[in-house]
């Protein structure tokens, strides 16, 4: 049943990514050049709605939370490498799958590059684990743990910060306002 749920979530997610334009490298680069923030605002809205909803729902029903560990060096360095690749290709590991399904050949090439990148990581994992993944590992921590506050309070605070940013920042800086 879990596999069916995931398939359905993937279908809707693929549709949303395609419709918002996140599978267009031009839209990704417009965001990274801070010219058109549509994709960043879309993501911030997604997170704000999701955060409040999951912690609200968790008050009544058991939720399948799965927090990733904060190993500062690997997550930070991995993020920087990811960011460089994101700016080069204009794709992330999910949007190149959506783009390939749309018929974008550069997305298919990025997908192939992704398989090669994952293969390289698989081959070097044993050599880098001790100095990139093991040090400074603070475990599965959340902002609620850091601030010693109820998760619901932090979720509302984070959503307020994100939505304030979304409403104050211009979407398209090449136009006067909006």
């Amino acid at each position, binding site marked *: 049943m879990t596999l069916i749920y995931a398939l359905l979530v993937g279908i809707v997610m693929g549709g949303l990514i395609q419709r918002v334009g996140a599978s267009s490298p031009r839209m990704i680069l417009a965001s990274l050049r801070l010219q058109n923030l549509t994709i960043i605002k879309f993501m911030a809205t997604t997170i704000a709605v*999701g*955060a409040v909803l999951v912690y609200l729902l968790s008050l009544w029903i058991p939720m399948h939370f*799965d927090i990733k560990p904060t190993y500062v060096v690997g997550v*930070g360095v991995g*993020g920087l490498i*990811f*960011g460089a690749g994101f700016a080069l290709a204009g794709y*992330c590991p999910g949007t190149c799958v959506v783009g390939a399904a749309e018929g974008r050949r550069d997305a298919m090439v990025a997908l192939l590059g992704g398989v090669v990148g994952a293969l390289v990581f698989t081959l070097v994992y044993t050599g880098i684990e001790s100095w990139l993944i093991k040090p400074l590992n603070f475990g599965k921590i959340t902002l609620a743990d850091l601030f010693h506050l109820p998760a619901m309070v932090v979720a509302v605070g984070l959503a307020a910060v994100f939505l304030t940013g979304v409403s104050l920042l211009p979407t398209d800086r090449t136009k006067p306002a909006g």
Partner: protein
Amino acid sequence: MTHASTSVPITTERTALNPQRWALLGVLFGLLSAAAIALYGPIGVSGTYPRFIGSILRRVAPAYAASNPYLVKMGSLITPETMLVVGLLIGGFLAARLGRAPSAPAAEAVHAFETTPGRRYLTAFLGGVLILFGARLAGGCTSGHIISGITQLSVSGILFGAAVFGGGILTARLINPVRGGR
């Protein structure tokens, strides 16, 4: 913009989206990511790549696959995450064809030096290598770390998101300085 090769046209016009459409789509995506956590677990994508490699190596080089600690750690390809990636293919395909929007360009140039499809494919390939290497090092990608991670208020998601946008904005500047207006 010059096109040295015409076999695959590369487009440079900006994709348009109705104002505020992104807000509605963002709310829907938020409902979807919360529904996933309620039903089975947070959305994620990038772990599927090494699991795919593992599924092939277990057939062609079973002894090596069994001895590689990362492939053992990532495990079988039969996971919800793999099904989500299959769903992305179906959803992306359907959304691209059910609308009135023009079909997606084969190759979309995003950097000034991408004057031919070959150059565009080269940057797409290199970028693809880096995003998966970086995602596997960090333990997640845009969906697993940024969307699902920050939704769950995880510190790792916020750290990853800051590094991605920091590194991405810097790289975009370095390889293609902004020229007035574009």
